[in-house]
């Protein structure tokens, strides 16, 4: 249908301008959800509830920030949930034996960064598809954490700073929310304004073209894997602080929530397309649904069912929108 090229070019261009509208759609969905829930349950807008939602969002957003970069390069990491649990256990164990918050955090970051590096090397050097590679890592970590500890690693060190990690505030804002906001801002600025960010999109859009242009595409992917790993390290320590223990069973299904938020936010699994703003909205939508189900007193199992429906619907809407643009 090459005959169409000339005429459809301007229309596609308008479509390109409206590309941000996947975020617009998401924003509208979010607003509708908030209004609907608050009509049914006015306590939705209480300060306590909003802070609870934000704290819920923080963990997901921290990891989703790294995951957005990774998916933009057309790779994915399914091991983040398993890694999250393992990191908490290791961090807590190091805290117990050293009584140093710094060493505990460093151990957690070193471990999770190493997991990211391992994933990245398997994908870039051994050329194993990232979906498969990180399922492998996930299984190794899920089993490995039980080799490390059969039960939860309890808090024996009583470090006040550690408790603050999850429960502290800066002004009126919970510390995890501040941490998430900082990581989000850094990642968003990187993707939007830096050469590194531009290369991440480029690798996802066409890795061979990037390589031919003299850019080391493997290192870019490796970078995204390690950043995702480090985000897991931070989130894992916050989670263990919130639970006041390193839980080997924590984080089951966490990877799905994170990836769902990223995809919901309009980032393409094929790479080269996506934004952190979208991811933020995706996280908010999922967590507002979660919260709504709880405060409306619905069956909690719906917390899995409803987001599942939302993801399929949102992705379908995206396809419809793209089709409308192409004509």
């Amino acid at each position, binding site marked *: *249908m*090459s*005959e*169409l*090229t*000339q*005429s*459809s*070019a*301007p*229309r*596609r*261009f308008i479509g*390109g301008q409206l590309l941000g509208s996947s975020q617009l759609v998401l924003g509208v969905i979010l607003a509708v959800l908030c209004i609907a829930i608050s009509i049914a349950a006015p306590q939705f807008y209480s300060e306590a509830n909003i802070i609870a939602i934000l704290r819920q969002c923080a963990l997901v957003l921290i990891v989703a920030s790294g995951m957005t970069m990774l998916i933009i390069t057309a790779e994915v990491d399914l091991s983040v949930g398993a890694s999250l649990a393992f990191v908490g256990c290791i961090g807590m164990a190091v805290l117990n034996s050293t009584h140093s918050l710094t060493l505990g955090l460093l151990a957690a970051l070193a471990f999770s960064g190493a997991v990211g590096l391992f994933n990245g090397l398997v994908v870039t050097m051994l050329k194993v598809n990232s979906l498969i590679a990180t399922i492998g890592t996930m299984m190794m970590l899920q089993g490995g954490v039980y080799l490390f500890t059969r039960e939860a690693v309890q808090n024996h060190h009583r470090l006040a700073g550690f408790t603050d990690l999850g429960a502290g505030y800066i002004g009126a804002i919970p510390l995890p929310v501040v941490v998430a906001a900082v990581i989000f801002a850094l990642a968003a600025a990187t993707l939007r*304004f*830096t*050469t*590194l960010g*531009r*290369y991440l*999109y*480029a690798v996802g*859009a*066409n890795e*061979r*073209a*990037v*390589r*031919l*242009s*003299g*850019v*080391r595409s493997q290192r870019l992917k490796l970078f995204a894997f390690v950043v995702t790993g480090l985000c897991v390290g931070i989130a894992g320590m916050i989670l263990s602080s919130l639970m006041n223990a390193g839980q080997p069973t924590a984080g089951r299904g966490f990877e799905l929530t994170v990836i769902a938020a990223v995809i919901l936010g309009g980032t393409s699994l094929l790479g*080269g*397309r996506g934004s952190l703003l979208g991811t933020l909205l995706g996280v908010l939508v999922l967590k507002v649904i979660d919260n709504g189900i709880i405060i409306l007193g619905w069956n909690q199992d719906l917390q899995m069912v409803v987001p599942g429906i939302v993801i399929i619907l949102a992705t379908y809407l995206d396809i419809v929108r793209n089709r409308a643009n192409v*004509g």
Partner: protein
Amino acid sequence: MSVDFLHPDETVAVDKSVPALEMRGIGKRFPGVVALDNVDLTLEPGKIHALMGENGAGKSTLIKIMAGVYGKDAGNIRLRGREADIKSPRDSLKEGIKVVFQEIALIAEFSVAENIFLEGYPTGKGGSIDWKKIRADAAALFRRIGFNVDPAARTGSLPVSQQQMVEIARALVHEARVVVMDEPTSSLTPNEVSLLFTVIRRLAALGIAVLYVSHKLDEVFEIADTVTVLRDGRHVSTRPISEHTNDTLIQDMIGRRIENLFPRKRGAPGSKVALSVQGLSTAKKLKDVSFEAHAGEVLGFFGLMGAGRTELAKAIVGFDPITSGTISVDGSPLLPHDTHTGVRLGIGLLTEDRKSEGLMGELPVYQNASLASLGAFARMGFVDKASERKAVQDYVDRFRIRTPSLFQQVKNLSGGNQQKVLISRWLMRGLKVIVVDEPTRGIDVGAKSEIFALIDRLAGEGLAVVMMTSEMPELLGLADRIAVMCEGRLTAIMSRDEATQENILNAAIG
């Protein structure tokens, strides 16, 4: 289904005075564009009729109307003298029109014979399929068109050229009176092309009207009796091929004269060695290739399909690994052997496969152009977008890249404009050696001369241009020296003055 088509020497019973297909005043609109406007086309039985035009001229729309893929908005179609109403691909087949599209529509997992009789298997007792008969009938069909394919072979395992033959054989099963071939040679080797031509002539001899859709001039001159040219959805001319020359055909296709397809503005090449390749071998293809390219020179590489040109191109820029040999750019060895080092030393590849190795289709024009030189627009790691866009805009203006804006997704540009974006990518980076692989593949005749002018300019600015091409006119028109490859080896290097089509082809055959 009748079986009379099985007699190898029988011709289709046709009245040669009645056109096999007549299209009158065909019109077709898509939202926002007139794809076809009042187009006429008449196909005579037993004749080969070429349909030519640039991309966007309306060729594919017209044949899709014949095939029943699109409906027409205006005009009428007559088959063998009577009005025909084609509403679906099924109608079209029933009316005796068989279109062989570029994308081959066979079931890869089925045998050749099964594919041929897909629409109706001959059945034996109790409705069971008569496999023996299917194979025998298929073999007979191939004999009839003068081509040999094993009917039991799995279709997907055959080369494209043979799959095309299977499609053509299907035309005979349907007793087609009109066979349409859409750009059938785009992925064939020269040998396969000549086989295909034999088969097409055989079809014509059987009394079938053949419509041959192509934009390759030499092929059309070789095979067609008559040629119809479309431009911008309108009928431009229908003339016997004998009344055309290369120039008149091009003029009809692009609507203006091209004075000189290969304008040479650059001076004589320098003597400074910009690229030196010594004893280069790769695991799969290349064997002991050595040559030098000078600054300001276009060194053309010719070879038949499979000679190793693309492999050489990818090896010397560091994209594909090598097993032995040295490459140096301006005296510096390409070590380690990767594209990062290559680009740093100043050698880059303009790929033959724009879609999978060149373009980032979803991303805007300016990001595609600046990909290799992004570092030059960075301050502390941040992209200075204003200066980046200004630099790209500069190239868009200089090279007359037709795009609505810098933010247009590059996949929406025409092939010629995409190629200019990719050339800009390298010029913005600044190279000493540029390797161009089939620089005009998939590019319209009109845009070709612009690409040639650009290549001339690159050499004029002092780059060494290493050009891989399978197009003889391109080679003779642009190159200062000509290197010829055969099966991974370099078989000759000659100056432009020594080169003739004959000695180039001799060296290419080995």
